């Protein structure tokens, strides 16, 4: 590992660039993993606040896993308090309406099925799958964020896809 110039993340420029690079990423990760119900945005902010407050104790190369671990733990604590069914983003109605009402209804139905199927995935499958499909991240990038191997990411995503297809077909 190259030796970094700073031995902590207190430097303003450094913190700022770190913040902009990883803030949305942590938020998305928590959102996919735990859903919107438990306020992942608050947890993301708290995690970065913790990093800011303790910047003297955190080395730059450890900062990313620091905020991800804190964010994740905070969400887990919250989960302990509320055992909830995952509820993903409300499906927004489309603005254009040149489709037939029948088609719209079918589409709504499909989305509901998909939502339920996503809720039934395991946390690790859902997180990796949504990062891949929605954010368009490649396996390698996801592996880096989750700190697991590319192979494991690949397996999770493929398994998630199979589960979703199977479940939608059954319903």
């Amino acid at each position: 590992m190259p030796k970094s110039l700073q031995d902590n993340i207190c430097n303003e420029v450094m913190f700022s660039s770190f913040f902009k690079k990883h803030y949305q990423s942590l938020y998305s990760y928590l959102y996919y993993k735990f859903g919107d119900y438990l306020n992942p945005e608050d947890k993301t902010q708290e995690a970065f606040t913790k990093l800011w407050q303790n910047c003297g104790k955190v080395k730059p190369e450890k900062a990313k896993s620091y905020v991800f671990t804190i964010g994740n733990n905070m969400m887990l604590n919250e989960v302990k308090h509320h055992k909830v069914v995952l509820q993903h983003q409300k499906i927004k109605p489309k603005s254009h309406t040149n489709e037939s009402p029948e088609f719209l209804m079918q589409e709504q139905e499909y989305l509901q099925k998909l939502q339920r199927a996503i809720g039934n995935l395991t946390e690790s499958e859902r997180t990796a799958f949504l990062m891949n499909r929605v954010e368009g991240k490649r396996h390698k990038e996801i592996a880096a964020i989750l700190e697991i191997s590319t192979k494991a990411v690949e397996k999770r995503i493929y398994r998630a896809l199979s589960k979703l297809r199977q479940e939608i077909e059954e319903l």
Partner: protein
Amino acid sequence: MKREDLIQKWLDHALTPEEFEAFTQLEDYEELTKMQTALQYFKAPEVDVDAAYNTVTTTQKDTSKPTSWFKPLLKIAAILVIGFGTYLYATLPTLTMHDTVAANKTLVKLPDTSEVALNAVSSLSFDEDAWEEKREVNLEGEAYFKVAKGKTFSVITNDGVVTVLGTEFNVKQRNDLFEVFCYEGSVKVTHNDTSVVLQPGQRYLILDGKEFRNEEENLKEPMWIHNESSFKSLPLQEVIEEFERQYDVTVKAQNIDISQIVTGSFTHTDIDMALQSITLPLNLKYQKKQNSIILKRD
């Protein structure tokens, strides 16, 4: 290329244009594209990164370096030292000491108004703070106690312990002599694990490790209180030592059997009279030379 591999590659966003062409020909294509489109509804909302950045960076920053392991340890150690020191200081017995030198007597008042008359060359100490819990004094030498009524009163000497409830008694502890005389009430003497209870007028005596008990005349107080030392059936040695203590002199005995048993007394106020009362009955002569006295056969 196999169908599964194509899907895997699609999942990794790694299809080449040719592979993509093949992928579109798959029977899964339509279903996968539909799902892909639908999944976009599940995208995590955009967060306002700049607003969040401002919120986060306005909080107080702690830039302190990680503290080393011994700093908190030092704090703990300091607390322990202070605590232990205070504890020791608070619980250490603070002994009150009273000493007398040769040719000197003193009267000591104890916290409970008990009185102690301290004979020459004696030392008395007690813990004033713990007096409420235990009435205990340490004695070296000779003292006469008038003990006020109350809890058990103990006199601790090297030769034994004297315990009473409220009474008057005399304790004498010199080199090889330990004598307790009870004047009033009753006194319990403990010596080498054996206990003896004395009634008024009774004397308990240990001389050279041998125990004697006998009745004495009915005295109200020890004679030495009234500046006179009296002896009953004691070796001449003891008389000479007491004389030395009372007059602060050294006495040499030449060709005299100092172990012979004598009974008698001498005054503390007149050295010549005292010497006469010792020497006359024994047919001895004495010579005075400043601070030393020589006893000789007639």
